[in-house]
């Protein structure tokens, strides 16, 4: 086994069942092997009005050359949907990454580095004051235990992690003496190997994983079509019937891959205008590349998610982007 580079964690993690510990607005960012990534999640207008917490969540983790990007939408009608979503991404990531590598247990000490020379003077208008939190989990060294990239094996890992996460959620529901549907959540993600530029994308439930190229923007996973107001969730017994997984290769003309929950997907999948999806994808890429500093991009992204106006768009909004 060789020691591979460190892993990091960015995004939402479980803290408490007793009450919502999600920040209402959350953003993360980073870079690995020439790929940049940002993620942001903003509470929806309805949850704000009703004094509820954000039920979307996201998580970005790495192991060596691997990047794992996950979004989940805790279903609004489920009592603990937001908690279910956070549990799902945390457990799923742990399961999947443990198939790729094992922790060596050595914490890497932070190296102090100079700021990149940008003045990050953005305040966060949602709050109205320059208030916010930046936090990091310590990076840890890992030993590689799997050899990329066997596409079939990747799909098997992902499917296995889904199955285990499904069982985990059922176990939690039993322990908490509630029905599994109480923790109902979707789960979408991309497992991407930054050196070989290959990976898999997977989706259970509504939302969208979108590849943006110069000429077009297309769903990476052609998921099941849902009627409005319906979705599939990880806690349902027949989740496999709704689960979609596909190989993914970063082509020369790929500009970005975007993952989003339905709060954003519903605002770009259906027009008018008739070419909305590509316009949306191209505009997002343009905005991602407007600033070189991912911190700035992440701040702008969460601010935009918290503020943009679209007809009858009230849900939590989460968007992750992987780009070069």
């Amino acid at each position, binding site marked *: 086994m060789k020691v591979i580079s460190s892993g990091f964690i960015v995004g939402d993690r479980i803290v408490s069942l007793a009450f919502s510990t999600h920040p209402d607005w959350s953003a993360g960012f980073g870079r690995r092997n020439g790929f940049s990534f940002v993620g942001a999640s903003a509470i929806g*207008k*309805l949850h704000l*009005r009703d004094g509820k917490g954000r039920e979307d969540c996201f998580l970005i983790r790495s192991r060596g050359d691997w990047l794992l990007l996950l979004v989940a*939408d805790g*279903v*609004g*009608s*489920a009592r603990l949907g937001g908690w279910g979503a956070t549990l799902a991404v945390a457990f799923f990531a742990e399961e999947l990454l443990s198939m790729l590598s094992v922790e060596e247990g050595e914490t890497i000490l932070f190296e102090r580095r100079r700021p990149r020379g940008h003045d990050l*003077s*953005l*305040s966060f*208008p949602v709050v109205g004051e*320059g208030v916010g939190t930046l936090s990091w989990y310590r990076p840890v060294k890992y030993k590689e235990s799997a050899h990329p990239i066997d596409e079939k094996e990747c799909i098997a890992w992902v499917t296995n992690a889904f199955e285990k996460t499904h069982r985990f959620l059922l176990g939690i529901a039993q322990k908490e003496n509630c029905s599994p*549907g109480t923790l*109902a959540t*979707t789960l979408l993600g991309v497992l991407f190997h930054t050196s070989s530029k290959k990976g898999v994308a997977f989706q259970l*439930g*509504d939302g969208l994983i979108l590849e943006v190229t110069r000429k077009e923007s297309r769903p990476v996973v052609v998921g099941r*079509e*849902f*009627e*409005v*107001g*319906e*979705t*599939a*969730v990880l*806690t*349902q017994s027949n989740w496999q019937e*709704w689960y979609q997984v596909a190989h993914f290769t970063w082509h020369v003309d790929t500009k970005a891959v975007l993952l989003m929950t*339905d*709060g954003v997907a*519903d*605002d*770009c*999948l*259906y*027009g*008018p*205008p*008739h070419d*909305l*999806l590509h*316009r*949306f994808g191209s*505009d*997002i890429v*343009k*905005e991602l590349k407007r600033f070189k500093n991912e911190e700035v991009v992440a*701040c*702008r*992204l969460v*601010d*935009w998610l918290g503020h*943009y106006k*679209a*007809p*009858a768009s*009230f*849900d939590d909004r989460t968007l992750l982007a992987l780009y070069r």
Partner: protein
Amino acid sequence: MEEEVIMDVTLSQGLRHLPVYLLLDTSGSMTGAPIQAVQEGLVLFKREVEKDTFARETVWVSIIVFGREVLNLTQGLVPIDSLEIPSLEAGGYTPLGGALRLLIDSLDRDVKKPVRGGEKGDWKPLVFILTDGKPTDDWKSPRNELLMRKERKVLNVITVGCGPDIDETTLREIAIGPSFKMDADSASFAAFFRWVSQTVKSVSQSVSQPQGENIPTPMPIPPDVLQYIP
């Protein structure tokens, strides 16, 4: 100095509607206080739903009456803030089957299904049927058509019977979802329309339902005056 952060991203301009159908019995037996109470209930319904910012943006309503005539009084679905409360008149029999036919026509004509790359689809319609008697025409065929629809599906047909002449078994058979019974006094009608308003507001703000299957939309607990028919 604060910097305003604006991203310039093209977004959907399509509006998603929640279609709400009120099928109201205006047969002869509703003459007098009951029809007056229904009329007042409609005013209350409009006022309550309009008050809600989110519902006001999404709720579209159609009022179909069945009595001496079967009419779609709103000529299809209209935005809640444009809804003009029609003047109701009672008379004739109880042709519920005809009303269901008008409902099907409107579902086909006025409710949009989602088309990727095309327009946003509407939410699944909510259908409330209020009657004080037994249907006097063939209601089973159109009811089966509703049940078998593959697109623009209807999963919520709530029946409410009022007064002493209702047939609980028939009410239950008509419904796709729960059935209730209540008295035919003005307080009961007011409570019914208040519950309809709450249901509409609640559904207009609901996000996706789990299962990806055909399950009815969860609704607020009805008031005491509405007794569930098992």
